[in-house]
C-alpha cells in the first residue's frame, strides 16, 4: 500500500498519503540503500529543474523576437543561481538559527541600501530598489527576502512551535514590521512578498488563532482606512489616486483608460487566445509582436501561456505546485522547528509570487511588478529563487538521519 501511495504524483496525492502515515504511526519499511543522489531532495529538485527548462524555452522565444532579451544573460543568471544554491546546499543552514540579531541587522542594512545617497540607482522601470557596486547592479531586496525568511525562522524557532505570551507574539510581529516598513517605501510588491512569507512563518510557528485573526483584522482595518482616506478630499492622502487606480484596475480593465488597464487587457488577450494547446513556440502574436509590454518580465506568464496554451499552463502550474508541496512535505517531516519554518518561508514566498504574478496576468490580482519565480527575465530574482531552492536542499542534506 505504501508503494502505491508514494508515486511521483501531484502534491495532493502525496499530501493525503502523508496524512495517512502521520495518523497511522510507524509502519512500512525503511529503505536503507543510499543512492548516488541521496544528498538531494529529488521530489523538490526535479520540478524546479523542469521549470528551469521551460524557462529557457520561453526566454528563447522572447530573445528571438524582442531585442532587449538575451538568452545568454538569462542562462548565466541561472548558472549563478545554481552555484549559489550549491553553496547553500553544502552549508549547514542550522548555523543561522542562533543569529537572530545579526540577521535582523543584515536585512535592515540590505533594505536600506537603495536609500543611501550615491548607491541607489533607478531601475529600468523607474523603481528605486537598485544599488550599484562598481560595474554591478542588483536589487538588495532580492537577497533580503531570504535573509528575512531566515530571520523570522530563527526568531520564531525560539518558541519551539508554541507561542504562549502575547509579548512574544508582538515582538515577532515587530521584528517583521521593521524591514517591512523599510521596503514598503520603495517597492510595494517585494514588501508584500516579505510580509506574506514572514506572516506565514509566524502563523505556522504556533501563534494562537485568536491573536492571528485579530492581527489580520487590524491589517484589514488599516488598509481600509488608508484606501478610504485616500479617496476623501481634504485629508492628506497616503496613496495617490494613480496608485489606487493601479491597485483596482484589474477589477475592470476595459473600463479604465490607463496604461495598466491596456496592459492587462493585452495580457488577457494573449492568454485567452492561447486556447487549449497554444499558438506554438515563437508564434505569440500578442506577446512577441509588441502588443504585450514587459512580455519577458511582469507578463512572462502571458507570454508562456499564449505559446503553450491551457495544457502548457497547467503543466507549469503543476510543476510549481509540486515543488511547493514537496517543500511543505519536507517541512512536515524534518525535526527541528527552525528547519520547518525556513521551509515554510520558502514555500510561502513561492506561493505568493506564483499567485500574484499569474493572478495579475489573468485579472484576479492587482497589478504589481512581482516576478514569476525561475521564469521572469532578470538575474537578481533568478539567483534569489535558486538560492531558496538551495535552502530546501540544504535542509534535506542536513536532516537528522536515523541512527
Amino acid at each position, binding site marked *: 500500500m505504501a508503494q502505491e501511495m508514494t508515486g511521483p504524483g501531484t502534491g495532493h496525492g502525496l499530501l493525503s498519503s502523508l496524512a495517512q502515515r502521520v495518523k497511522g*504511526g510507524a509502519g512500512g519499511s525503511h529503505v536503507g540503500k543510499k543512492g548516488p543522489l541521496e544528498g538531494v531532495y529529488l521530489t523538490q529538485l526535479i520540478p524546479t529543474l523542469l521549470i528551469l527548462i521551460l524557462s529557457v524555452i520561453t526566454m528563447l522565444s522572447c530573445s528571438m523576437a524582442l531585442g532587449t532579451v538575451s538568452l545568454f544573460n538569462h542562462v548565466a543568471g541561472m548558472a549563478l543561481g545554481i552555484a549559489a544554491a550549491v553553496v547553500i546546499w553544502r552549508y549547514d543552514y542550522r548555523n543561522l538559527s542562533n543569529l537572530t540579531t545579526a540577521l535582523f541587522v543584515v536585512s535592515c542594512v540590505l533594505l536600506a541600501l537603495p536609500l543611501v545617497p550615491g548607491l541607489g540607482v533607478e531601475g529600468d522601470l523607474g523603481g528605486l530598489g537598485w544599488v550599484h557596486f562598481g560595474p554591478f547592479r542588483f536589487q538588495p531586496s532580492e537577497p533580503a527576502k531570504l535573509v528575512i525568511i531566515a530571520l523570522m525562522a530563527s526568531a520564531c524557532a525560539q518558541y519551539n512551535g508554541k507561542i504562549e505570551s502575547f509579548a512574544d507574539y508582538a515582538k515577532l510581529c515587530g521584528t517583521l514590521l521593521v524591514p517591512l516598513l523599510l521596503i514598503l517605501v520603495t517597492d510595494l510588491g517585494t514588501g508584500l512578498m516579505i510580509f506574506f512569507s514572514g506572516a506565514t512563518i509566524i502563523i505556522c510557528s504556533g501563534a494562537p488563532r485568536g491573536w492571528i485573526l485579530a492581527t489580520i483584522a487590524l491589517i484589514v482595518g488599516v488598509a481600509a482606512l488608508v484606501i478610504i482616506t485616500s479617496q476623501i478630499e481634504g485629508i492628506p492622502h497616503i496613496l495617490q489616486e494613480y496608485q489606487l487606480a493601479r491597485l483596482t484596475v484589474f477589477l475592470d480593465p476595459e473600463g479604465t483608460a490607463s496604461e495598466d488597464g491596456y496592459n492587462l487587457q493585452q495580457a488577457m488577450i494573449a*492568454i*485567452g487566445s492561447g*486556447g487549449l494547446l497554444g499558438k506554438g*513556440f515563437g508564434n505569440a502574436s500578442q506577446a512577441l509582436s509588441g502588443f504585450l509590454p514587459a512580455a519577458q518580465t511582469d507578463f512572462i506568464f502571458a507570454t508562456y501561456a499564449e505559446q503553450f496554451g491551457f495544457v502548457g499552463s497547467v503543466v507549469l*502550474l503543476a510543476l510549481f505546485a509540486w515543488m511547493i508541496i514537496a517543500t511543505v512535505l519536507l517541512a*512536515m517531516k524534518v525535526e527541528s*522547528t527552525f528547519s520547518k519554518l525556513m521551509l515554510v518561508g520558502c514555500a510561502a514566498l513561492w506561493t505568493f509570487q506564483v499567485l500574484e504574478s499569474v493572478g495579475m496576468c489573468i485579472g*484576479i490580482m492587482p497589478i504589481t511588478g512581482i516576478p514569476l519565480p525561475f521564469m521572469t527575465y532578470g538575474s537578481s530574482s533568478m539567483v534569489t529563487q535558486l538560492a531558496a531552492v538551495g535552502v530546501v536542499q540544504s535542509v534535506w542534506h542536513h536532516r537528522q538521519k536515523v541512527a
Partner: protein
Amino acid sequence: MDLSLVIIVVCLVLAAALIVVFIVFGRSEGAFTLDIGGASPRASGGSDSSSDKTLSSRLIGLAVTVGGIFSVLVARLWTMQLVSAEEYTEKAESNRTSTIYTQAPRGRILDRNGEEIVTNRSSLTVTAVSDVLDDEVEVTLLANLIGMPVQAVRRKLQDTTQGYQSRRTVSVDVSRRVVAYIGEHPEVFPGVSVETRAQRYYPHGSLAAHVVGYAGTVTQEQLEESESAGEGQVQYRSGDVVGQTGVEARYESVLQGVRGEQVVYVDAHGNVTGQASGFDPQSGSDLVLTLDIKIQRAAEESLAKVIQQVRDSGKVGAGGSAVCLDCTNGEVLAMASFPTFSPSVFVGGISTTDWEALQAEDANFPMLNRCIAGQYPSGSIIKPITTMSALDYGLATAQSSWYCTGWWTWSGDLSEAAGMKCWGTHGGVDLVSGITYSCDVVFYEIGKGFYLQNSEGMQETYRRYGLGSSTGIDLPGEEIGRVPDAAWKWEYFKSLGYSDEDATWQGGENCNLAIGQGDLLVTSLQMACAYCSLANGGPVYRPHVMKGVRSRMGDGYVSEYRVEKIMDIEEDPAYRDIVARGMWGVVYEEDPAQTEHWTNLDVTVRGKTGTGEQISADRAIGWFGAYGPAGEGDTPRYVVVANIDGVVSGGSSALLVVRDVFGAIYDQPDTSTAISTGVD
C-alpha cells in the same frame, strides 16, 4: 533557427532525463517520512506533542492553502483558455491584422461606336507613409515642393480612410517637376513616393455630361445605405468614388470595380510584418451607351449656338434640351441639355464655390437634365395628338371645317370681349391645315367639344400617349410632368385654399389644354416618345441610354439592354394620314422661312412647331418635334424633339436645333439662315 532548435531538443532531452531520474531515485524519499516524522515525536513525550500537533496542523493548513490557490488559478485559466478562447482569439487577430484597400478603376463609358466618353487616366500621385508626420522638416519641404499649405499636407497624412496601414495620398496630379525632384532626392523624402492612380477622365470635355453624370466621393447617406444593404451589394468605404448622377449613378454596380484588399500582419507599432491574404483590385466593366458622339455633339453645339442667337436677339434663352431617339427600338442617340457642366470638376473632389455655382438659379441650373427633368407646357406640338383625340372621340372628322378670324369666343359671338386669340388669321381651315398652320381656333373648338361631350377624353388620349407618366428611361431624376383634369385642379387649388368656384374645371381650360397651354407640363423625352408612336404607327419602345456591358475579353457584350415595348397605340390609319399630312405641311408649307431649312435635306421630315406660354415665368418656350425619314414608303427611324426656354417661337429656335441633329444624322448640314417669324 538551427541554434534554437538545438536548444529546444537539448531541453526536451534534459526534461526526459530528469523525469527518468525522479522515477528511478525519487521513490525512496517517501519512505523517509515513516522513520523520522512518525516515530520520534512519539518518543519525546507528551509536552512536545501538543506544540508539534499545532505545527503539523498549521503545515497541513498551508498545504491546503497552496492547493486552493493553484486550483483557483487553474479554474480561471480554464475559463479564459477553453471557454472564452474564441473571443480572445478574435481580439488577438484584430490586434495583429490590418487591411489595406486599393481603389479599383471604374469602368469606362463608351458611345455606341466604342468611342470613349468617360475613361480613366493615370494621374501622378504623391503618397507618403504616416511616419512622415513625425518629421517636421520633411513635411515642410514636401508642402513647399508641391505648393500646398503645410497644414493641408499634415491633414492628408492623418487621413486614414484607406486603412490605417495604407499610404496616405498627399497630392494628385502633381507635375513632372515634382516627380523628378522626389525621384532625385530620395534621401530628403524618406517614406514619400510617387504612384500612378486612376482618375476619371473626359476626353470630350463636357460632352453628354447630363447623360453620363459624374462620380464623386461617397456621401454619408450612400455609406449608410450600403451598410444596410444585403450581401452581394457593393459595400462602400469612406473615401470611395461613387457615381452620383446620370449613368454613373444608374449603372454604379456595373461601373464600380471591386476594391483590392490586402490583409497584413502588423506589430504593436503598426509596422507591417507580413502578408496574410488579399486580392487585387478588379476594375469595373465598360458600359456602352446608345449615344452617337457625332449626333450628341451636333445637338449640344446647335443648342448652344441657337440659344446664343436667341440671347443676341434680346430674349432670355434660359436653357434648352434636345433628344434624338431611334423610334424603332427606343435607343437614345443624343440627349443634350443646356446649360451644361464639366464633370471633370468633380474629379478629386469639388470645391464649395464650384458646387454652389453649379446649383445657382442665375446660372440656370447647369446640373439639371432638361430632357428628363425640364417640365414645360408643350405648346402646339401637342396638336397632332389633340387631333387624334378629336377623331377618336368623333368630335371632328376629315370633313370638319372651321373659320378663323384670329378671335374666338365660347359662345361664337365674336363681338364678345371675353375670348381667346389665334396667333394668326387663317380663314377656312380643316384638320390638316389646322395642324399645318397651327390654327388655334380649330383646337379651341375641339377643346370646347370635349368639355361639352366628354370632359376627360382629351386627357385620356394624352395619357395614352404617355404624358403625365414616367417613360422609365434608365437615368435617375426623371420627372413625369402633368396632365391636368378636373380632379387634379380641384385637389390642387383647394389645397392652396381657393374657393370652390376657382377650383372648378372651366371650359376655357379645356380649350387651353387642346393647344398645349395652361397647366399641362411635359418633358421633351415624353414628347419624343409620343412622336415615336406617330412615327411608328403605334408602338413605342422604352427609351434607354444603355446599350450593353462590354465583356472584359473581346468585343462582345456580357449583357445587353432588352428592348421593351411600353405602348402600342391603336389609331385608324385614315386618322394617321390626316395627322401625317398636317405635319408634312408644317415642314414644307407653313412658312417658307421654315421650309428653306428642310429642302436642303434629302429625306422627308414631318414635324410640328410649338410655342408654349409660361405665365409664371413670363416667357415662352419654343418647341419643335419631328420624325424622319417620312416620305412615301419610308419607315421612320429618327425622332428628334428640342425645346428652348425663353424664345420668340419654336419655329425660329428649336426647329433649327432639330434640323442640325438631322444634319448630323445624314451628314447634310443646314445651309439656310432664314428665320421664321410665325409665333405658333
